[in-house]
């Protein structure tokens, strides 16, 4: 992959573009007045921010899209500033996160919206915006004018109010009396044309929908005539819980986002908070995090491939892969006592050092896993039934994948070699020798191949890191961030006071906001963190990779066969915990 200089800020050229009114599209070339008042900022953490009027949002985004400057819309969310109204006129911020797959530049766009006001939807410009805007409506009650289907998405349909508003109590529950009947999106172009369509409900409790996904379809024989999905069956209010807990107590909640690879979520969250605090963790902690993350990536792919194969009738692969998954669990148990949800990272480093000989155990296990992956390869890759069920199924082009906001193995299977470990390296990934596997067609088979190849690359990474494990401390020793050692707490009054102060008051990052992303097993896992200087996050928004991927699902399966729905669903690696949060 070519390397691109990511250090140069896109801000300067961006400013020039807007100031001179130069644009690749004529309608916006006339004057910068078309964009209203624009304000370019760079935050203390180095994020580029553009503040715009809400009415000029479509024009600005059209410019970004047409100029090819930002091809990805990573996230749309909102912030309720009810408790921070000083110096503001309007209550809400609608926040957009843009990303470029060419220059790896990021830009945050903010628009202020008042109570009861509407902001133009950008879903006609960026397809990925659809669900993200629906979510902002659901959580904050912000109206997006021109949105094709502005309905609730995460909370149940009988819910009253908007839970992420600051004046909604975190524990105010509202019972739901019944499940929603089958429903489809209003589509004026849809005609049944005399076909006898059979409505079919798949899920949420169905063996192939992994417990919490609901797919609604109308089938013409074996063909899907139209489809829709419903989510929110596992909406556990992660973001509200984060707002009501001190920073370190949010870590166990992040475990339960993508519970197939829990440590990666810990790492993503801690990395975001550490950047906000402006601290760098010691080399040993970085290396430990890489080992944990790559082990997690492997077991996440195990579950994905195993479950996908089970759904298509191949139980052997599942039993085979879970044998190796148990080995990784044993490693985690040895490291910290927990198996699935380890919560091993702390802000500032790790919770504790690895026990003696742990890294040798890891190397030993990696050898076994490597054999297991080879056997999996032999079991499935050349298997005629597996090939026929997966090849040519769920194809997606690179352009479509980008338009939907795909990241991770699903995007790479479509032929885009984007991986944040290479694009925006962290923890020294840039010094490691590994490849980014890329597919060609983006079908289910390619996704499988990419995952298998990624497991091999992860094994390579673990081997390199474990053999060169840096010595030194496993955490920073900043008294305002990290709890002192227990011997200090019980041994001297300074340590005891330090411990009490941190437990009672929590660590307090400076006022500010930032977006930080890591390459999780499913793709880009982003955390948008707003701090008001108190001991709790003012707002924490997760950008879950599978949310954007699942958004394309009804489009992907329409016109295909019913049996392929299962194959595609399994290959997308949807984890309800992060999908619904």
């Amino acid at each position, binding site marked *: 992959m070519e390397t691109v200089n990511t250090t140069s800020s896109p801000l300067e050229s961006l400013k020039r573009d807007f100031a001179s009114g130069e644009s690749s599209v004529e309608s916006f070339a006339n004057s910068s007045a078309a964009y209203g008042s624009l304000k370019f900022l760079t935050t203390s953490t180095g994020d580029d921010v553009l503040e715009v009027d809400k009415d000029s949002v479509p024009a600005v985004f059209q410019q970004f899209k047409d100029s090819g400057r930002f091809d990805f819309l990573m996230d749309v969310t909102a912030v309720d500033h009810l408790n921070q109204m000083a110096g503001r006129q309007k209550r809400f911020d609608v926040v957009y996160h843009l990303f470029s797959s060419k220059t790896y530049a990021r830009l945050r766009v903010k628009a202020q919206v008042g109570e009861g006001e509407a902001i133009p939807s950008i879903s006609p410009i960026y397809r990925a915006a659809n669900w993200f805007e629906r979510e902002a409506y659901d959580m904050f009650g912000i109206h997006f004018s021109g949105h094709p289907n502005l309905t609730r998405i995460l*909370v149940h349909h009988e819910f009253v109010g908007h839970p992420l508003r600051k004046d909604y109590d975190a524990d105010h*529950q509202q019972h739901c009396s019944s*499940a929603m009947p089958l429903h489809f999106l209003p589509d004026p172009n849809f005609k049944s044309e005399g076909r006898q369509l059979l409505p079919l409900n798949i899920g949420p409790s169905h*063996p192939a929908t992994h*417990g919490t996904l609901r797919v609604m379809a109308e089938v013409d024989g074996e063909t899907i005539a139209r489809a829709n999905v419903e989510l929110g*069956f596992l*909406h*556990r209010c992660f973001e509200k819980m984060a707002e009501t807990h001190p920073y370190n107590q949010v870590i166990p909640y992040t475990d339960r986002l993508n519970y197939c690879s829990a440590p990666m979520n810990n790492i993503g969250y801690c990395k975001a908070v550490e950047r906000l605090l402006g601290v760098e963790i010691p080399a040993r902690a970085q290396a430990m995090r890489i080992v944990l993350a790559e082990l997690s990536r492997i077991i996440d792919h195990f*579950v994905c491939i195993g479950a996908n194969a089970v759904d298509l009738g191949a139980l052997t692969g599942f039993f085979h892969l879970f044998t190796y998954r148990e080995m990784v669990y044993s490693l985690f148990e040895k490291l910290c006592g927990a*198996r699935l949800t380890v919560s091993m990272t702390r802000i500032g480093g790790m919770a504790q050092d690895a026990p003696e000989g742990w890294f040798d155990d890891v190397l030993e296990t990696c050898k076994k896993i490597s054999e297991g992956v080879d056997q999996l390869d032999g079991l499935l890759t050349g298997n005629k039934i597996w090939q026929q069920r997966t090849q040519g199924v769920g194809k997606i082009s690179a352009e479509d994948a980008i338009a939907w906001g795909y990241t991770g193995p699903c995007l790479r299977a479509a032929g885009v070699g984007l991986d944040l470990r290479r694009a925006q390296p962290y923890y020294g990934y840039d010094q490691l020798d590994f490849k980014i596997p890329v597919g060609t067609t983006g079908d289910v088979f390619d996704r499988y191949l990419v995952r298998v190849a990624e497991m091999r690359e992860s094994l390579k990474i673990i081997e390199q890191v474990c053999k060169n494990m840096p010595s030194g401390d496993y955490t920073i020793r900043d008294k305002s961030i990290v709890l002192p050692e227990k011997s200090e707490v019980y041994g001297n009054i300074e340590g005891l006071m330090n411990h009490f102060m941190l437990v009672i008051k929590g660590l307090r990052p400076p006022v500010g906001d930032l977006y930080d992303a890591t390459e999780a097993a499913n793709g880009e896992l982003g955390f948008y963190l707003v701090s008001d200087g108190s001991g709790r996050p003012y707002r924490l928004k997760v950008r879950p990779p599978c949310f954007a991927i699942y958004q394309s699902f009804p489009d992907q399966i329409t016109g295909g066969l019913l049996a392929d729905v299962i194959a595609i669903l399994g290959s997308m690696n949807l984890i309800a915990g992060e999908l619904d949060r």
Partner: protein
Amino acid sequence: MDEMAKSFAFTTRLDDIVAWGAKNALWPLPYGTACCGIELMSVMGPKYDLARFGAEVVRFSPRQADLLLVAGTITEKMAPVLVHIYEQMLTPKYVISMGACASSGGFYRSYHVLQGIDKVVPVDVFVPGCPPTPEAVLDGVMTLQRMIAEHTPRPWAEGWKRPSFIKPIT
């Protein structure tokens, strides 16, 4: 049966032998919604092997299952679905609540999480943990087996009515 009674000497009561059969042939419906669902996969998997306890035949149809194994958070949105599934199961039916979320809402004391599935369905065994280790789940299954073998009275299940806030699904 009369014929058999003439030719064999029974050393047990009939309901004991039925209970013995029932406890060793549980057919679980794995209602795995979240993290616990992944640990439940481990319980079913090669190392812990739930099959050793005769609970091998995992069924996703409530008509074919007698043990509802709720593994994972049940949200307000999911509650009517859970009740519907429980109602469809044939008697005698048992419920194991696996993990903190299913048992009490866990650390999700929040607006969209049901604070324990016993608010909507009767539970026989609660397995603590977040998520519980597979050993704990096996212990839960063994506890249930003991309850079945010993004919433990289950007043909570006998007197169960659908909660008033959940409509019947038509």
